[in-house]
């Protein structure tokens, strides 16, 4: 007794202040009671001290003692239940049979492990979900019809796997008396019993189960090897193997699914050739090895993921639904009876409701919350499984005010929904998209203005999540949809007013296109321009003006042939700029399949911001009108800068191949407009000798940048003496002429 009280005292002082320990020593000092209380009842320290004092005295004896603060506690001696060999030896001091010792040792080893978890009332090491996993077909709860379907399918394999013939001829069998579809794909919500059913049915029909699940490495050659071994070898039990591929809908399962698909397709090929053609024995044996003689069952939650697209086509698909409430309840009752749990009907219903007919999680709930069920069911929110409500139904819920429920209640419901679904981003974006199509009451844009600030908050949160990986911020994200609810929910909103379409994507794509164009223009610029033009300014500052510079406007657009000299300068300037920016003119077809001239890269898509169609049309019409003339100008620029020797050489070559080209030209004269003149010049075919070189009907392989290298310039007069120039008039028509012209005519037309 005394040493106990001392012990407490000592430890208290020891705990409270280190320095006091030496001064107080062993004596009990009357001090004001410390502020904290210590209960040494269960402390290891005390119990070990106790037992070391005198065990024989304390056995089966209760101890009452006073604590410093006046409380009374009673200490119970812990019973030592372990059978000790020592005792046996002591009791029978002499004739100790070795058998007895062995026996007791065995006993001890059996007893000790069960003693460890003594703290909890019930002793069980097994999860109920595993313990009560149905062991045979009859124990399965719910989905009876599907279960039978599965059984049927597997039964069809009997011929191939077991070699036994089926009782009745079924028409859904293939040539080798196997089911038509070689893979069974089971899908359904978690906890519906897919895995269990697959295992049970396989067992029931005498298969050895080989399971490959997500915990196994399922990529690359390893899995291929594994699957092949499983499917082709015999097990020790002489039973055929049934391959169960669990959880195949992960994103990283492409490799595994490829393996399955390969097996099926190989099998299909082998079956065909085996059946229809007469092959040598050797070959047949070889083919037979490729045959699939074992059933494969694949299991997934979501059958419509992209990775399963191809597997779906070749497999028998079985949908598992949630088990019915009734069958779940029956099963739960059975288990409760067996586990001796007294549970009311109401609570059972509540459990099923919480877990959404998921038998496994119901069992987990029952096992681990068994005693405190009442308290859980009180606040059912906490234990609820993450609901699978899609983001658009949440968005719809947000805007559709339920008049029967109080606003407060609805907010709470939505908040849990958003918290558990974790799709606040999608929801918020949808909210923003449909903001203007909603019906709601607003005075002077007060609500909208408020939302603008909340959207800023949303932007802050999402950028901090992305930039700083501040995931903890996402918990505030649900506030934005809730605010939307408070401001905009109205009973009259339907799914029509809520805009699910994400319009941002469309603009995002467009932006990408524009950026790509600007980038290509910018990176094609020569060094000095490249450095003086900022890419970020191109679209807003430079290109709009350049667009107008390269497409000059004239007083008389109809008679562009007879331009005044000062107007021709504009054309030349335009061509120069065009060349400098690396633009080319190409022919394309518009929506009405008429030929139009286009600038490439398409600068007009960058420059035109207005949605106005007529505006765009007038611009493109103008471009179409002027571009042919600019192109001539562009050609001329290239010519004048070419050097003499080169052109002479080309000219000789050209004469040699002129016949060939004439044919080409005739075929390429499908121009829309009857052109005033079309012109052929020998010098410019440096790059495209032998192809058609009509100015207007474009040669296909013309390299737009061919003119960018700048050899020594050459004068017109020089050129005039070196070669003849052919002009084709009304080319392609019956009244076509071919005659010599002079340079003067050409430059001044």
């Amino acid at each position: 007794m005394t040493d106990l009280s001392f012990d407490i005292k000592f430890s208290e002082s020891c705990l409270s202040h280190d320095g006091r320990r030496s001064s107080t020593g062993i004596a009990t000092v009357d001090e004001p009671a410390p502020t904290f209380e210590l209960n040494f009842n269960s402390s290891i320290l005390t119990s070990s001290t106790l037992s070391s004092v005198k065990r024989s005295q304390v056995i089966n004896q209760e101890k009452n003692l006073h604590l410093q603060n006046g409380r009374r506690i009673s200490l119970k001696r812990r019973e030592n239940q372990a059978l000790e060999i020592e005792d046996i030896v002591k009791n029978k001091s002499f004739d100790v049979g070795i058998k007895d010792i062995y026996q007791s040792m065995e006993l001890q080893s059996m007893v000790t492990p069960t003693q460890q978890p003594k703290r909890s009332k019930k002793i069980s090491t097994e999860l109920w979900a595993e313990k009560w996993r149905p062991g045979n077909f009859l124990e399965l709860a719910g989905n009876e019809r599907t279960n039978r379907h599965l059984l049927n399918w597997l039964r069809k394999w009997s011929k191939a796997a077991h070699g036994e013939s089926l009782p009745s001829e079924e028409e859904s069998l293939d040539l080798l008396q196997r089911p038509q579809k070689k893979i069974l794909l089971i899908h359904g919500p978690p906890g519906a019993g897919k895995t269990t059913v697959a295992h049970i049915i396989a067992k029931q029909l005498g298969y050895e189960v080989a399971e490959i699940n997500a915990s196994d490495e399922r990529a690359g050659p390893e899995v291929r090897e594994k699957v092949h071994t499983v499917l082709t070898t015999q097990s020790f039990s002489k039973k055929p193997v049934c391959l169960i591929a669990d959880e195949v809908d992960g994103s990283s399962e492409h490799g595994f699914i490829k393996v399955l698909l390969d097996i099926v397709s190989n099998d299909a090929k082998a079956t065909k050739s085996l059946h229809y053609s007469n092959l040598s024995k050797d070959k047949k044996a070889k083919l037979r090895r490729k045959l699939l003689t074992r059933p494969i069952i694949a299991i997934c939650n979501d059958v419509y993921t992209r990775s399963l697209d191809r597997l779906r086509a070749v497999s028998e698909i079985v949908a598992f639904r949630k088990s019915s409430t009734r069958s779940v309840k029956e099963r739960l009752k059975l288990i409760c009876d067996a586990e001796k749990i007294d549970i009311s009907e109401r609570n059972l219903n509540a459990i099923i409701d919480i877990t959404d007919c998921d038998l496994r999680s119901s069992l987990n709930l029952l096992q681990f919350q068994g005693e405190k069920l009442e308290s859980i069911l009180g606040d059912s929110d906490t234990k609820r499984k993450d609901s699978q409500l899609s983001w658009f139904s949440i968005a719809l819920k947000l805007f559709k005010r339920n008049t029967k429920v109080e606003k407060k209640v609805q907010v709470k419901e939505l908040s849990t929904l958003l918290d558990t679904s974790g799709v606040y981003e999608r929801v918020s974006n949808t909210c923003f998209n449909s903001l203007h199509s909603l019906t709601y009451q607003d005075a002077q844009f007060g609500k909208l203005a408020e939302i603008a600030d909340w959207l800023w908050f949303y932007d802050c949160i999402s950028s901090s999540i992305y930039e700083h990986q501040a995931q903890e911020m996402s918990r505030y994200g649900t506030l934005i949809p809730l605010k939307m609810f408070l401001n905009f929910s109205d009973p009259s909103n339907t799914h029509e007013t809520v805009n699910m379409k994400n319009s941002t994507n469309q603009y995002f794509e467009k932006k990408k296109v524009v950026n790509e164009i600007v980038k290509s223009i910018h990176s094609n610029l020569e060094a000095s321009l490249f450095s003086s033009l900022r890419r970020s300014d191109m679209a807003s500052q430079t290109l709009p003006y350049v667009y107008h510079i390269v497409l000059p406007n004239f007083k008389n657009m109809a008679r562009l042939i007879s331009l005044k000299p000062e107007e021709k300068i504009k054309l030349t300037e335009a061509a120069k700029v065009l060349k400098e920016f690396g633009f080319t003119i190409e022919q394309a077809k518009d929506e009405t399949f008429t030929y139009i001239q286009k600038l490439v890269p398409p600068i007009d898509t960058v420059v035109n911001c207005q949605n106005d169609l007529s505006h765009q049309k007038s611009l493109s019409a103008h471009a179409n009108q002027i571009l042919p003339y600019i192109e001539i100008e562009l050609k001329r620029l290239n010519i004048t800068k070419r050097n003499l020797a080169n052109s002479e050489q080309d000219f000789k070559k050209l004469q040699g191949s002129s016949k060939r080209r004439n044919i080409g030209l005739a075929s390429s004269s499908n121009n829309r407009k009857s052109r005033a003149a079309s012109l052929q010049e020998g010098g410019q075919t440096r790059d495209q000798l032998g192809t058609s070189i009509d100015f207007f009907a474009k040669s296909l392989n013309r390299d737009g940048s061919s003119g960018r290298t700048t050899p020594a310039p050459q004068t017109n007069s020089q050129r005039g003496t070196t070669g003849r120039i052919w002009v084709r008039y009304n080319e392609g028509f019956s009244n076509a002429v071919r005659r010599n012209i002079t340079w003067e005519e050409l430059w001044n037309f």
Partner: protein
Amino acid sequence: MSLWADKYRPKTLDDLDYHGKISNMLSSLALSGDFPHLLFHGPSGAGKKTRILATLRQIYGPNIEKLKVDPKVFVTPTKRKLEFNVVSSPNHLEITPSDMNNNDRVVIQDLLKEVAQTETIDFTHVSEHKKNRFKVVIINEAELLTRDAQAALRRTMEKYSANIRLVLVCNSISSIIEPIKSRTLLIRVAAPTDEEMGLVFEKVLKDQPEVAKSFPADETERQQIYSKIARVTDHNLRTGLLLLEALYSYNPSITIKTPMIMPDWENVIKKLAIGIVSERTVSKLQQSRSDLYELISHSIPAKLILKKLTIEFWRLVDEDSKIKNTDTVKMDIVQQASIFDERLSLGSKDIFHLEGFITKVMVVLEKNVL
């Protein structure tokens, strides 16, 4: 060099048309053969780059114009390959941080060190140009350098100052960190005035007599056109010259009445602003959202949209007779604009904030309409 803006770009310090003081300072810098790190700032189109190149030309001679573009490949610490273009001449090179997104720190560190650690040895000019054995690195759009990159820069600037000179070019020095400002000589190049721009335009036209024919012969009339151009382009000489050329190209002849060629996006913004001031409804908001989307998708910077919108609102409020308390309304609009400008810089969802701005402007207007 066929755009007027490039064709008539002054090549030497003596050719520069305005900011005589700066030119003098730069030429004395160039004469000494050495210069400190420089930080040029000022609005775009004011002539920062022109002045830098002219200075470099004075130091290194015409070599500086032999530009070439080299694609460079960097490997980021995350093993991602990063390719961007470097414009370089034998004596200098130019980089633009916006090409490299968030990896500019790596580029700054690696590239500058690489340049700085290789000493240029020029045997031909050893005697006369002993001093300028350094290479010049021009960093365009320095305001877009991330903080990390700027921090990486500051030590390099000191450590390798024997071999390297940095010239930073930026529009605003507000996002340049203090240590860099203290290590550089700040040179502000202000936008040219109406007269200065007119001077340049006049020079351009004088050089091309055929072109000048399309413009009015009377000098005051021409000046009027010039100042109109200056106003429309925000005194950006570069765009001013482009506009002048576009006007010439697009119109048979130019008079005072010739409408200015506005980029399409500016027209869209103008229309948008008019619509908002005259009609404040939710359907208008919806419509303006699609306009905003259109503008953003044409790669018009959101901040520019905000700025132009604000200016338009400001103008419209003055003109609209139905709006009372114009001064407070204008103040409120500007205040909202500054709030949303901040949001645009900090946030990433431009459309939210642009629309938010419009909504707030509607609120302001709604309260003050008779």
